[in-house]
């Protein structure tokens, strides 16, 4: 029996200890009419050997296309040590560290992770993780509404340059709590939030302003100006950022006069493979004064009865297992193992390594813009500098152009027509440090061919 170690002899001795004769009697309290006889739609068991073959075929079937898509999930080099260590059974097969003394490995690692993430964001506090970037942003909106003591409205201003799926996800998660999301328009030339449009919102009340840096188009936002404006309006500032790039870019804690109040985003760029969208993790950092409104687990350093340093889950009075219906969130299980990988990734890269990756991503984006910008039928839409991604407007239907790339095993980018129809035949193209000069040259040639 797969993974069940009992011998016939053991089974009968256990049954007699219980005082029954057959395994089936274990279910004698379940009403008879509910009992099922078969589960036909489940296939017969297969051996490990046979299944290995099936899964290898399926994994290979999807090929290994050259990927220029970003749109919230970014391909980066991940050192082998990251997942080899994270996959150790002691990390892989432990659970939430409820028994602190028997979980010091996981707890210390989370404390180190919190330190690294708070450092990257230049914020006071980090939690131990949420599910992913989109749901973390929804939690940030809920947190801001709880935390904002100056302004009790349930309206939140969200930049139109925030990842559209993130906006959809916020809406799905907060709509039942009578929270209203208002969209801030963007500048169609620069590709970032339109400072001029803030004026019309000045007399209105908002609990928070949400912006993304770099934004969904890869463009940089004027973070100082936006943050100061939010604070003047008594709104909290929520920064959704790509954490890797904060090694190079001004981190949320340093935005404007007083810094962002909550920083969150997707931790995927820090050591998580693309893996078709998950598991990634959501990170969240905040200022000291609102830590009690933070959702999710938090690890603290303390002492044992002999004065030795140790780590525990702390501020649990915020959480569902203690506070039940009054908890800051319903989250229980988070994305622990991905955070484990991420801490290892950040430690291996160090401050200089992360900065170099960010710089190479920046240089590669510029190289791509340089390469394709002069092609006939291509317009680089936005002027703002940026990272990872850029928007190209094409003189042919995007779908037709994409098909030419697919035929050559290349994924040319993300089609923006559904989310931003006003941009026309627009394609969001991503280049990270993983792309070589040859890759960029190949992209250019393929695009030229597709537009010919």
């Amino acid at each position: 029996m797969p993974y069940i170690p009992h011998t016939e002899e053991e089974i009968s001795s256990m049954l007699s200890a219980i005082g029954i004769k057959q395994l089936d009697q274990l279910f004698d309290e379940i009403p008879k009419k509910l009992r099922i006889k078969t589960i036909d739609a489940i296939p017969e068991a297969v051996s490990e050997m046979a299944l290995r073959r099936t899964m290898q075929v399926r994994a290979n079937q999807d090929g290994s296309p050259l990927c220029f898509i970003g749109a919230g999930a970014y391909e980066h080099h991940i050192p082998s040590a990251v997942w080899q260590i994270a996959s150790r059974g002691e990390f892989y097969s432990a659970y939430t560290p409820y028994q602190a003394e028997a979980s010091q490995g996981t707890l210390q690692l989370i404390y180190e992770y919190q330190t690294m993430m708070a450092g990257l964001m230049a914020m006071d506090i980090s939690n131990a993780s949420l599910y992913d970037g989109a749901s973390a942003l929804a939690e940030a909106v809920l947190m801001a509404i709880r935390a904002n003591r100056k302004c009790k409205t349930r309206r939140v201003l969200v930049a139109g340059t925030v990842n559209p799926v993130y906006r959809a996800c916020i809406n799905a998660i907060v709509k039942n709590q009578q929270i209203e999301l208002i969209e801030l328009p963007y500048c169609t030339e620069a590709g970032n939030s339109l400072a001029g449009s803030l004026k019309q919102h000045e007399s209105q009340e908002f609990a928070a302003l949400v912006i993304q840096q770099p934004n969904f188009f890869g463009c940089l936002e004027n973070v100082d100006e936006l943050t100061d404006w939010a604070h003047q309006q008594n709104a909290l500032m929520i920064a959704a950022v790509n954490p890797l790039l904060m090694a190079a870019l001004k981190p949320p804690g340093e935005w404007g006069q007083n810094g962002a109040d909550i920083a969150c985003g997707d931790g995927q760029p820090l050591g998580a493979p693309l893996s078709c969208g998950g598991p990634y993790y959501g990170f969240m950092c905040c200022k000291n004064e609102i830590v009690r409104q933070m959702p999710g687990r938090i690890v603290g350093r303390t002492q044992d009865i002999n004065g030795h340093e140790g780590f525990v889950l702390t501020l649990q009075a915020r959480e569902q297992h203690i506070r039940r219906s009054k908890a800051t969130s319903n989250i229980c299980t988070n994305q622990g193992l991905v955070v484990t990988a991420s801490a290892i990734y950040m430690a291996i890269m160090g401050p200089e390594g992360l900065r170099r990756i960010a710089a190479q991503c920046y240089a590669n984006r510029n190289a791509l813009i340089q390469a394709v910008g002069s092609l006939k039928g291509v317009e680089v839409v936005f002027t703002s500098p940026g990272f990872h991604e850029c928007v190209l407007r094409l003189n042919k239907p995007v779908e037709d152009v994409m098909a030419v790339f697919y035929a050559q095993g290349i994924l040319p980018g993300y089609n923006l027509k559904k989310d931003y129809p006003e941009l026309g035949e627009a394609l969001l193209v991503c280049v990270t440090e993983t792309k070589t000069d040859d890759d960029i040259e190949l992209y250019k040639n393929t695009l030229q061919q597709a537009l010919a």
Partner: protein
Amino acid sequence: MLIFNYSKAGRKTGSQSPNVSADTLLKSLPANSLRKSKLLLPEVSELEVVRHYTSLSKKNFSIDTHFYPLGSCTMKYNPRICNELAMLPGFLNHHPYAPLQFSQGLLQSLYELQEMLKEVSGMQGISLTPMAGAQGEFAGVAMIQAYHAARGDTQRKVILVPDAAHGTNPATAMMCGYQVKEIPTAEDGDVDIQALQAALGPDIAGIMLTNPSTLGVFERHIHEIADLVHQAGGLLYYDGANMNAILGKVRPGDMGFDVIHMNLHKTFSTPHGGGGPGAGAVGVGERLLPYLPVPVIGCNTDNQYYWMTEQEIPSSIGRLSGFMGNVGVLIRAYIYMRLLGRAGMPRIAEFASLNANYLQAKLKQLGFDMAYPKRRAGHEFVLTLKRQAKTCGVNAMAFAKRLLDKGFHAPTTYFPLLVPECLLIEPTETESKGELDRFLEAMAEILHEAETNAELVLGAPYSMPVQRLDDVRAAKELDLVWKAD
């Protein structure tokens, strides 16, 4: 030692990042967009990182190293093959927005997982997107809300939750904007039907139940409860945390539930990872099909698999994640289900229940008190140390800590809340009789220690990297982030 203590300023090991000058490349950016402050990440070698985190890992109890009978968490063996195959490069390097022609192998696996989950749950439709049990609960309650709203039935503001429920149930109901009303448990461990009847009315949107409940017993009146709630116009939500107890034996759909979530990291053995990632797939009956969270995987008449989005499911409650949920976890669950197969599913329930009932019977013999001694255990049971706490001054927490010294992870302590000084013990089907007997020996030893030398038990643990930690200090003198001196 923290990783930061190994750091030496200016150490550049470099081999893992591009060999470029960041300053030179970044200089064309506006100065006010750049980071000026020093970034506090450790500057250490790859070897130091590997050694540090390997040594940290050794300070953990885990399924791979210890019996881990943590009730309500189903800490069963996580087959290594599931991890290996889920990490094949074709799956790992797959961008979530890759077009369908580059996604068929992956989508086929996910589609088949949906179909298998439909069968074991007895539901009509499945969405795999929720990323953990609590998010599955959110999806479920949001669907109940969408159902009532679509019928113009807007007066239903209350969700019922038994007092034995997981904390996530009431927290989820609140997150969906509902009020929560608790229903007491009857003396025999079942829901108090009279109290339920009294609570039901036109303001009730639904009830959230776990079956077997967190008390480890099967709710025998489930049909009656389903009828009562449905007659009152409410819907029934099934918290699948305890599905390991009934897999292949009974199905939530047949019990009358309208919506359920399944914890794939429990029942279907995907790793718990030190606190996740999990996966909380939701299943619905016919009434809630239009509201499933997207994306869902479809299969068209040409046997092409595709993502069903808001276009195909226009009344969907929407998206709960940036992409498609924890796909890597889903692949592990798929592989596990294929390895176990049709005959393997009910066998899980049988041997999980055998192990739990064996432990329960033996612990009774050893002189321990069960919370529900007359009931058959599901895959777990509740033991109460109320008597020992009174007579020897040894409470459940001390017992739990002493178990660590004996080489066993502690059961869940002080949950469910309604049983004083309790341990919730879930052995799972993958433990051998020999391991269970060693656990029983340890429990007997601790009981003897409690009766003869309570101080010894109260001071536990002694053999861990640290002794009893000061939680109060942790919450009072907050130290959440390390700072360089």
